[in-house]
């Protein structure tokens, strides 16, 4: 099986999810070729176990993001039977465009892979699971944390390809993020608040706890729709972000079906809610029936002791 992995990388280097993409490639019997757009992350990509070779694709088009141009530049090196990318916004766009350029199908946001190729993926934001068989050649994007990362004892060869493409999307203005907080899509621990928090100012209690344990702060749709101060970027759920952290702490979130769809695959879920009948308790590994006013100071104190 000839597999090409599109590395998730940026000027900040290689994103750790790339080792998971290699893990996914190995699951279908491939020793993948890893493509590093813009040459970013090459140093780290070579040491991922199981990688056959690393291709650094460099060109002017990688100066700013234009998924169409990046896909065109990467597609010349994206041969083979299967292309694997991360199911991030950029990964999805690049992989979908490469698939369209090559005229091959794409299956997005895959959580299970077996030779054949059999894929499983959540649909309806996790309300059901779909198993399908995909012919080759094909493109696949892989959800973060769904596959074990490959090890770090590789020593692949690197080659460099100069390949650019015409950029059609011109960046006029970059607006810095309002906060330097971790994005829920990136975080391994998330603490989210719902409308039960009563007031957007009370999210500061969640932020204090997030700072102690290195968590991102998320929110339910109800909180985002009710309060302008809570931006959509924080929303976890079917019309927000689907997340799979190691630990998800839901505070004052009743657990509407569309919120559960976005977080139910978290490894461990803690729910804090004063309503013992709240649906969130149905998916919680550890449920605490208490008001947030009581529970959060105690949680902060206990976590501070660790």
């Amino acid at each position, binding site marked *: 099986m000839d597999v090409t992995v599109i590395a998730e990388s*940026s000027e900040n280097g290689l994103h750790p999810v790339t080792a998971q993409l290699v893990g996914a490639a190995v699951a279908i019997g491939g020793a993948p070729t890893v493509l590093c757009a813009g040459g970013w992350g090459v140093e780290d990509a070579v040491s991922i176990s199981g990688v056959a070779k690393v291709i650094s694709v460099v060109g002017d088009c990688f100066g700013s993001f234009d998924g169409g141009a990046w896909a065109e530049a990467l597609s010349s090196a994206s041969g083979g039977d299967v292309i694997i990318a991360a199911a991030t916004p950029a990964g999805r766009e690049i992989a*979908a465009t490469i698939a369209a350029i090559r005229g091959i199908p794409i299956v*997005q946001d895959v959580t299970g892979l077996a030779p054949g190729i059999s894929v499983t993926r959540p649909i309806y934001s996790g309300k059901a699971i779909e198993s399908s068989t995909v012919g080759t050649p094909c493109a696949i994007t892989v959800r973060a944390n769904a596959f074990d990362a490959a090890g770090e004892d590789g020593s692949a060869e690197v080659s460099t390809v100069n390949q650019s493409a015409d950029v059609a999307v011109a960046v006029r203005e970059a*607006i810095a993020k309002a906060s330097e907080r971790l994005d829920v899509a990136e975080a391994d621990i998330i603490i989210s608040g719902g409308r039960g928090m009563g007031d957007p100012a009370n999210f500061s209690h969640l932020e204090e706890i997030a700072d102690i344990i290195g968590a991102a702060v998320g929110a339910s749709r109800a909180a985002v729709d009710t309060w302008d101060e809570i931006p959509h970027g924080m929303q976890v759920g079917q019309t927000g972000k*689907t997340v799979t952290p190691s630990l998800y702490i839901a505070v004052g979130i009743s657990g509407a079906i569309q919120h559960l769809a976005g977080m139910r695959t978290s490894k461990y879920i803690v729910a804090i809610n004063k309503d013992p009948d709240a649906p969130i308790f149905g998916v919680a590994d550890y449920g605490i029936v208490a008001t947030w006013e009581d529970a959060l100071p105690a949680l902060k104190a206990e976590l501070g002791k*660790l």
Partner: protein
Amino acid sequence: MTIAVLLKQVPDTTSKISVSGGRVDESAVSKWSMSPYDEYALESALQLKESGGGDVVAITCGPARAAKMLTDAAAVGADSLLHVLVEDLNALDSTQVQAILAAAVSHCSAQVVFCGKQAADTNAGSTGPGVAHLMGASCVTMVSEVASEGDSFTAMRASSGGDQRVAVSAPCLFAFDKGTTELRRPNVRGIMMAKKKVAETLGASDLGVDTSASSVSVDSHSPPPEKPPGQRFEGVDSVAVVVSKLRDEANVI
């Protein structure tokens, strides 16, 4: 200027999804709605039309029940409607869906396309970039708003480093994330007018697309794995217990 808006009818996000006989039971879906991200695309197209003129054509590819969604789009201001009738979208792979929609856009002579960043059923996000490639258009995803500047467009998009304002020229496609605007509600006049609006209905073969050979076949659907019941605690004193369990039992902190 004609703006084509690609719409998909999906189970409402508040609907339960049930599986029977290894397939999602569509007959058990309580409510079908326009996919939420497509709603943002439609609202943005209507606003652009109001500020810069032009026509909005609503396009869908789907079964007969999707006609209702096109009527809903007409009720809020879509000028014309195109329904590519495909009874089972699950039987098509991404290349076929994209070929149908790109041909539909071309059929409407549209150079500007708005769509959702992904549909709320498949959650894939392949259609926008794929259709853009097939029509030779620039593609901007994760868009929250679009403005026109003569023959070119500026869009706000989300990126990992923060928001960016970008500029593109037609032909171009914008795939919308949730923005600040909600889809307007129809007024009575809009609803009455929409009832008289007839959608043009075509088959995939009318657009020259072969829907016979999908290279993705769905084997089965299943409900999400049941979680074993969790542990329940009462009161603030249990916080310390849960924290110790997170450390020693779950090993996540």
